[in-house]
């Protein structure tokens, strides 16, 4: 018999939130960088950017908005993964591992905490973007702000957050240094975001098209674009909504499954 799942998951999740609030620089850094990116790139690319085949299509700031939200989720997931390494190095993890807690709860506590922070930061950014837009600081951005769109936005931010936290955990679980994780971040996670259609559209042909199609994050970003779009024609070329949901869910399930298996198998010496 094991203790229930909910209490440890809830408790470990809450701990992630408390630690986040206590590390103010982390909160500010994770939040300000995307805002700066969005304003600078949005302004810088506003002249040169033209959406393929869409006359009077979105500005770059509009195109980039869901991509930046995805980037925030990516950074939150990276911080979540780094916290796995910190928990191990600071010793906290060893105490959790000798507690009568289902190993699944340990994984879910970490991932739920990371996902919740990702979604909250994403929404905070989108709210701020709306404020900047209203203040006239960014070029024209059209945006579907219906109830359904907001719910869909939260759902896709959450799905991407869970999958990316799960992906980060997979690497962080085996690493004992944050430096080591930086390599994973630069060669895997950041390119993954870059090649998801978040920063630039997938080309019509060539190898890049296939890399982007094979990237599971592409479908999260596409889903987010679909729910946020005010003009259906602007997102018609993206993968269908059904495909976006299926791939995003599958991505999350696979990552979490591997995390749970790894956590069950490896008993940790600190």
């Amino acid at each position, binding site marked *: 018999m094991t203790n229930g799942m909910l*209490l440890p998951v809830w408790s470990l999740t809450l701990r992630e939130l*408390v630690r986040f609030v206590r590390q103010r620089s982390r909160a500010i850094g994770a939040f300000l960088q995307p805002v700066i990116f969005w304003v600078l790139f949005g302004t810088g690319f506003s002249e040169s950017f033209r959406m393929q085949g869409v006359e009077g299509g979105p500005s770059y700031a509009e195109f980039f908005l869901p991509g930046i939200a995805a980037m925030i989720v990516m950074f939150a997931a990276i911080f979540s993964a780094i916290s796995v390494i910190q928990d191990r190095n600071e010793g906290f993890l060893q105490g959790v*591992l*000798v507690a009568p807690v289902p190993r699944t709860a340990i994984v879910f506590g970490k991932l739920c905490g990371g996902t919740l922070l990702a979604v909250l930061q994403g929404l905070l950014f989108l709210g701020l973007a709306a404020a900047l837009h209203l203040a006239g600081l960014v070029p024209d951005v059209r945006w579907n702000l219906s109830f359904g769109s907001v719910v869909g936005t939260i759902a896709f931010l959450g799905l991407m957050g869970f999958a990316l936290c799960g992906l980060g955990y997979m690497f962080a679980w085996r690493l004992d240094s944050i430096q080591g994780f930086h390599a994973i971040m630069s060669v895997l996670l950041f390119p993954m975001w870059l090649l998801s259609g978040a920063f630039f559209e997938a080309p019509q042909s060539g190898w890049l098209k296939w890399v982007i199609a094979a990237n599971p994050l592409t479908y999260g970003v596409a889903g987010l674009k679909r729910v946020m779009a005010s003009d259906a024609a602007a997102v018609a070329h993206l993968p269908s909504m059904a495909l976006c949901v299926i791939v995003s869910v599958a991505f999350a399930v696979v990552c979490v499954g591997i995390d749970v298996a790894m956590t069950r198998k490896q008993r940790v*010496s600190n």
Partner: protein
Amino acid sequence: MSAPAIRVEEVSFSYGERQALQNVSFVVQSGEIFGLLGPNGGGKTTLFRLLSTSLPVQAGSAFVFDHNLASQPDAVRRVIGVTFQSPSVDPKLTVRENLIYQGHLYGLTGAALRKRADTLLTRLGLQDRASDITQTLSGGLKRRVEIAKSLLHEPRILLLDEPSTGLDPGARHDLWRYLHQLRTESEVTVLVTTHLMEEAERCDRLGLLNLGELVALGTPDELRTSVGGDCITIRTTAAIGDLQRRIHDRFHVDVQEIDGALRIERTDGHELVRDLVSAFPQEIKSVSFGKPTLEDVFIQRTGHRFWDEQSRMGN
């Protein structure tokens, strides 16, 4: 008496090629303070990790109150409290928060948990620091938080890995007084690993670990008595092998060479000391004589000194 608190049967463990434990067997009775004494690298921490369910049982079997470590880790986890050598406290949380989150992992909640946390904070003298962020605490205080954490769910066995690491002598003394108090008042069985002789002296029974093997088992008194009468250690300026042979030829005693000194165990050693000094006045630089210590037990069982013990006694 019911089931023994801990039963270890022919347990071996290896990290890849390196054999860390070889056929270790012992029993800890309920209510005992049992010490695992040995030099660093002797296998203490590996054994501690096995018993705390941090490492899997590879060979042999181990039981905690009849719960099998290999097949019932959660049952074991429920009855053990674990104090790690490097504390498992979350440095970003306050002292009280550390206890509350720990309680949740053991299924404790609400008012009962808060009351239990407050009781432990008071018992360990942490009530004034309850709202402090844990990373601002000194090493000794962090250790106390760690112990409070491990006692929160009222474990029947407390496992401590080198608990006095980083503690000053006063704090170390307090810790041991508290462990004895726990045993008396709450009938908690204590298993502690240490490389400090003075700590080992405070245990009811000891297991001596060297290179992964249990080389001695018994109460500190039993172990000392097993050595024989007195221990004489001779340092010489002359060729050591030569002096060893000459002492042996003349007095017909066993002379061991340990790390550049000669060592003799003997009843009525004081007479031998006198005879030795008059027989080899030139060769002998110094002679020390004493009742056997746990270090002598260690030397006798392993044939080498409990290395770097001298430097560590002071820390």
